[in-house]
């Protein structure tokens, strides 16, 4: 019997740890007829180190946010670009397929076996005070993660404040920040409904966030061929879709928590002024993305087009 050690982060109650990993663990155990058992381990350090902890065999598998390692992961930002207008599940499937077809050969995940790619739900604007126009965000102190949201924040003229997600509640409540760009699910899991009483939900959200799930190649190679195939058969697109679905479900829970607690959620519709404002604001970001990945030797333009087509037509 083999134990497959998964390093995880975020609290054990988070959907990624309460749903995604246990579901996959069950799939793996069933597919290998119980020969491979999955064990989750916490407390191994900052999420950005997970890539290398898996690569060097400290653990056998893990997951992380690509934006934590700027410079190494650029192509993964394709799925994060604004105005995709799809659910996390649809985006995750598109993310996986396009990666396999276009991006895998650029080898950004060098040293790792990628077994899944997914995104969180659309990022929205959570604020202490309401706004009626995106231009009011100028000069406001907003907590931003890296990557595409940084670019959007810069175009809006916000004062960017960097901090890890679990610190957001404290900083919101203290007034160190006026708002945060983050998916709807955090209204519940980070208790933002207590401190960010105003949400502006743009149609399709502003951006997505790319995550990878990966394994140590040597661990896979050392397995029996049938176990290896069994694990891979329950990973890939199947795992990516399942993860995306779980994060979508978290967003629905978050929206419910927000509404039950009387948070002012403004659902901006297509064609309304703020949606138009956002479109104008993000003009040219596609080109900037192509530019940033020019050295990667892939057809980024075709890849982004195909990604959008898959995500938008996903059933």
């Amino acid at each position, binding site marked *: 019997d083999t134990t497959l050690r998964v390093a995880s982060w975020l609290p054990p109650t988070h959907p990624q740890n309460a749903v995604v990993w246990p579901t996959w663990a069950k799939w793996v155990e069933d597919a290998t007829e119980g020969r491979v058992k999955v064990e989750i*381990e916490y*407390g*191994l350090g900052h999420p950005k180190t997970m890539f290398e*902890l898996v690569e*060097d*065999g*400290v653990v056998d598998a893990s997951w992380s946010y690509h934006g934590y390692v700027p410079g190494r992961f650029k192509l993964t930002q394709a799925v994060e670009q604004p105005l995709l207008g799809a659910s996390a599940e649809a985006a995750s499937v598109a993310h996986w397929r396009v990666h396999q077809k276009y991006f895998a050969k650029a080898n950004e995940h060098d040293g790792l076996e990628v077994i899944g790619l997914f995104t969180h739900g659309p990022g929205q604007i959570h604020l202490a005070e309401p706004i009626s126009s995106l231009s009011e965000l100028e000069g406001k102190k907003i907590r931003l993660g890296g990557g595409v949201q940084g670019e959007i924040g810069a175009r809006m003229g916000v004062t960017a404040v960097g901090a890890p997600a679990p610190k957001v509640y*404290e900083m919101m409540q203290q007034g160190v920040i006026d708002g945060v760009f983050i998916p709807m699910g955090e209204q519940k899991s980070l208790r933002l409904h207590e401190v960010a009483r105003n949400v502006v939900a743009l149609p399709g959200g502003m951006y997505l966030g790319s995550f990878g799930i990966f394994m140590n190649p040597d661990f896979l190679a050392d397995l029996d061929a049938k176990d290896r195939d069994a694990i891979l058969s329950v990973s890939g697109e199947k795992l990516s879709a399942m993860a995306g679905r779980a994060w979508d479900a978290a967003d629905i829970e978050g929206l419910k928590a927000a509404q039950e607690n009387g948070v002012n959620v403004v659902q901006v519709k297509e064609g309304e002024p703020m949606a138009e404002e956002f479109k104008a604001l993000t003009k040219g970001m596609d080109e900037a993305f192509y530019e940033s990945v020019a050295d990667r030797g892939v057809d980024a333009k075709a890849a982004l087009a195909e990604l959008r087509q898959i995500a938008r037509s996903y059933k």
Partner: protein
Amino acid sequence: MITALTGFVILLLFIVVVRVPIAFAMGLVGFFGFAYMQGLSFDNFMDFNWNSSLTMASKRVINTAQEYSLSVIPLFILMGNLVTKSGLSHELYRASYAFLGHRKGGLSMATVVACGGFSAICGSSLATSATMAKVAMPPMRKYGYADSLATASIAAGGTLGILIPPSVILVIYGLLTETSIRELFAAGFIPGFLGILLYLCAVRFVVWRTPEAGPCGEKMSWPERIQALNGVWGVLALFSVVMGGIYLGIFTPTEAAGIGAGGAFIIALYRRSLSFGSLFDILTDTARTSAMLFGVLIGALIFSNFINRAGLPSDLLDLVNNLDVAPMVVILVILAIYIVLGMVFESLSMLLLTVPIFFPLVQSLGFDLVWFGIVVVVVTEISLITPPVGMNVFVLSAVLRDVKASTIFKGVTPFWCADIVRLALITFISSISLFLPELLYR
């Protein structure tokens, strides 16, 4: 469980018998323990794949040395050192003397209060006792105080420094357990003041038993008292800026350290107590202390990787569940372990060694981690005056060459008892620590 406990015993041997610095002992035992969990044995020593354990350790070094929230360590220490250099300790002592000095044991009481006030700015117990020894010892000698009472009030007063916020130890506890640092700071207030109060009671007790140990000082008139208060505005202002800024949300606790250091720098400039040379001394002294703390912290994190992989926290939990005892009994056992460890270790090493093991257990028993943090810090404070190795006592006997450590330990006994009373109060009445955080933040 057996593997982890074996590792722990080897670690204690390394630290106590072989005299390896704690940082490196924890790092080495953690490293080899982790490698053992990865399949290292005597047979495969030469062709073992060391890379995974090495990467684990390297990543701890690389990331801890660049952890943003740890920037409070050098900056809070810098604030304390700048305040010390400004001579504020003298004025704090003068102000408390003005109000308390004329009572029996009054100078001793003034020392305790001044130590408490000084601790409010300075995060280090050792610095507090070393500084206050220079300030408070001469007047107590002048009035014929017994060495045992005089030194004990300084050694004990010095321990207050790590609980009254801002506190470096509370920050480290917050990082290890992912507990809100702001709430920890708020929770430290009342237990900190309770500590001062109980120490005052201890002084009263000593002079009631042996009146000649602590004669009265001079009584000051009210105008003189007001004038003495004038001298402490600097400390009060700095403390208000730091804690008020955190409370009002002007900056984060992490940023508060930088602001506090900046404020202390301005006070020091204003009082003309800085030269290039002394600024350099303060900065390098702070850097040395910080580097030492980072060494211990990195070692502890590597060691905790091994403890986790060996499954000690979850095994402990299973054990407690099987024994089926009341949760409070578990806490009392943990406290007993701390008091025993406190004989040998100083506060930070003890905290780093044990918190990763105990906090998952405490959390799953349903206790509040903020409350547990305060309990742990109080019990580690006690270790600083617990024989045979009480760091504060040693620092004091090093500063005052003519006083023996045994004399100080003898004098410290009533204060030690006061600490045990405080520990019991805080353990059984959780609202002593949780009242403020609940009022302010929950």
